């Protein structure tokens, strides 16, 4: 662990605990974040299930192909929701309390962002349960571990994105931007079909969109075997996304006093 983070770990932990109240203490608060990706998972499976007849999906069960997207969609929604919550805290004045404390700015941000990584496990758990119930292939323990890493990693990146926008606009009205950003990032990948079936612009975008690497890392276990070749680009992408978006968010928090 980074020594600076270790010193400040109690602060991070107490901020994570506080952020977790949002779902632990408000009855039903976790439902919307779980419902949306679950509905999309079931809906897309029911609607586009026959696409596997085109071949090249690596499976005949579309649900095994699409579960990875739904898992990442859950992460994206959770991250965006973290941004919306931060914007609400800024509007309400709560965030000033944190800024007026001697806690370093990166620690304040880390508390908020890490809570998203934990919260993303809730929709992921529900999705996996529903998925296995309707025939999603067992990804193996290594595949499952990679899926969880992908979910938590993307949720962290998405939370950095949401927080950066919240710190920039300081209003909950920016919520659609936070959500749409993640929506685009997760769906403009090989979300619905493998690269060879993507049409026109989406083929190009999915090729350069870094989240495609994360998706393919998460998806591989559900489609068959886990390989290092499919894994490392996803891991590198997560680290890079978190680094870039966290820098963006840190810049935002430092500019709060401007």
């Amino acid at each position, binding site marked *: 662990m980074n020594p600076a983070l270790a010193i400040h770990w109690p602060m991070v932990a107490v901020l994570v605990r506080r952020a977790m109240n949002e779902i632990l203490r408000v009855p039903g608060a976790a439902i*919307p974040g779980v*419902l*949306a990706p679950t*509905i*999309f998972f*079931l*809906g*897309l*499976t*029911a*609607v*586009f*299930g*026959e*696409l596997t*007849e*085109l071949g090249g999906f690596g499976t005949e069960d579309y649900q095994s192909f699409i579960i990875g997207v739904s898992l990442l969609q859950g992460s994206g929604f959770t991250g965006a929701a973290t941004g919306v919550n931060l914007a609400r805290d800024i509007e309400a004045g709560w965030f000033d309390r944190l800024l007026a404390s001697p806690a370093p700015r990166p620690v304040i941000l880390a508390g908020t962002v890490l809570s998203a990584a934990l919260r993303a496990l809730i929709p992921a758990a529900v999705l996996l349960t529903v998925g296995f119930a309707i025939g999603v292939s067992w990804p193996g323990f290594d595949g499952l571990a990679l899926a969880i890493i992908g979910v938590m990693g993307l949720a962290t990146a998405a939370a950095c994105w949401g927080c950066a926008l919240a710190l920039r606009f300081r209003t*909950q*009205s*920016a*919520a*659609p*931007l936070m*959500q*749409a950003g993640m*929506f*685009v990032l997760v*769906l*403009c990948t*090989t*979300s*619905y*079909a493998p690269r060879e*079936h*993507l*049409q*026109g*612009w*989406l*083929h190009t*975008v999915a090729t350069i969109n870094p989240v495609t690497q994360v998706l393919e890392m998460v998806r591989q276990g559900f489609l068959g075997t886990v390989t290092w070749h499919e894994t490392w680009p996803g891991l590198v992408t997560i680290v890079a996304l978190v680094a870039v978006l966290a820098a963006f968010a840190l810049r935002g928090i430092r500019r709060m006093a401007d």
Partner: protein
Amino acid sequence: MAGLVANARVVASLGARSVRQTFRRPQLAAPIVVFPSLLLAVQTGGAGGAVNLPQFPEVNGFLDFMLAGAMIQSCLLAGNSGGIALAVDLEMGFTDRLFAAPISRYAIVLGRLAGTAALGAISAVYYVVIGLVFGVTYEEGVGGVVLMVLWVTLAAVAFGSIAAAIALRAGRASVVQGMFPMIFVILFLSTAFFPAELMQEPAATVAEYNPLSFVVAGVRDPVVSVVTGEGALKAFASIVGFAALGLGLSALAMRRRLRLG
């Protein structure tokens, strides 16, 4: 007659307010335009290969098929946004000011629905333009496009009336907002995104009988094939059914609200 004119003016001015309100609040506008557009783009690019499946109906392109789904999705979300805005008005006490004014109480709901109708029409025109830009062929020409806009506008009123009923009954924006996922359930269980014959069971059977599928077909036919009397009648009857349900429930919810104070 004078009363009718006065109420019509109230409906028009409340409708104009609701349109302005939608475009001034990104939270209300984004679901109507941004999300259906993104989904349309992603589904067209991602699942466009479906047109190569043997059972897929003959179309010029997958976007031609998908356009109706995006329009209906947009007008369902416009209805929901209208319901949320009405609930916010109820929470903030703005509707109390209107209830206290010497106007028909139903004009308040009709005003909101007039705004939703305008938003439906705007979104329909927007998607028609998107289609033109990206090479959609409108098989039934200008007349067909006019019919599409009409269906979407009427459907927006019908869906808006259901959202208004929920807003009037619950009085809380969070409850209406909670309907958001249900909209996607209804959409996925219709032919908005894919032909019923290619969907998985039981969704395929539900989609075949879902009245929303008839509305979607009514909007889709002028793009991909020909408008038939039977198709138009089914679309119209479905919209009337949704509207009757929504307006009936709205009237009951309004009476209850006024009775309980």
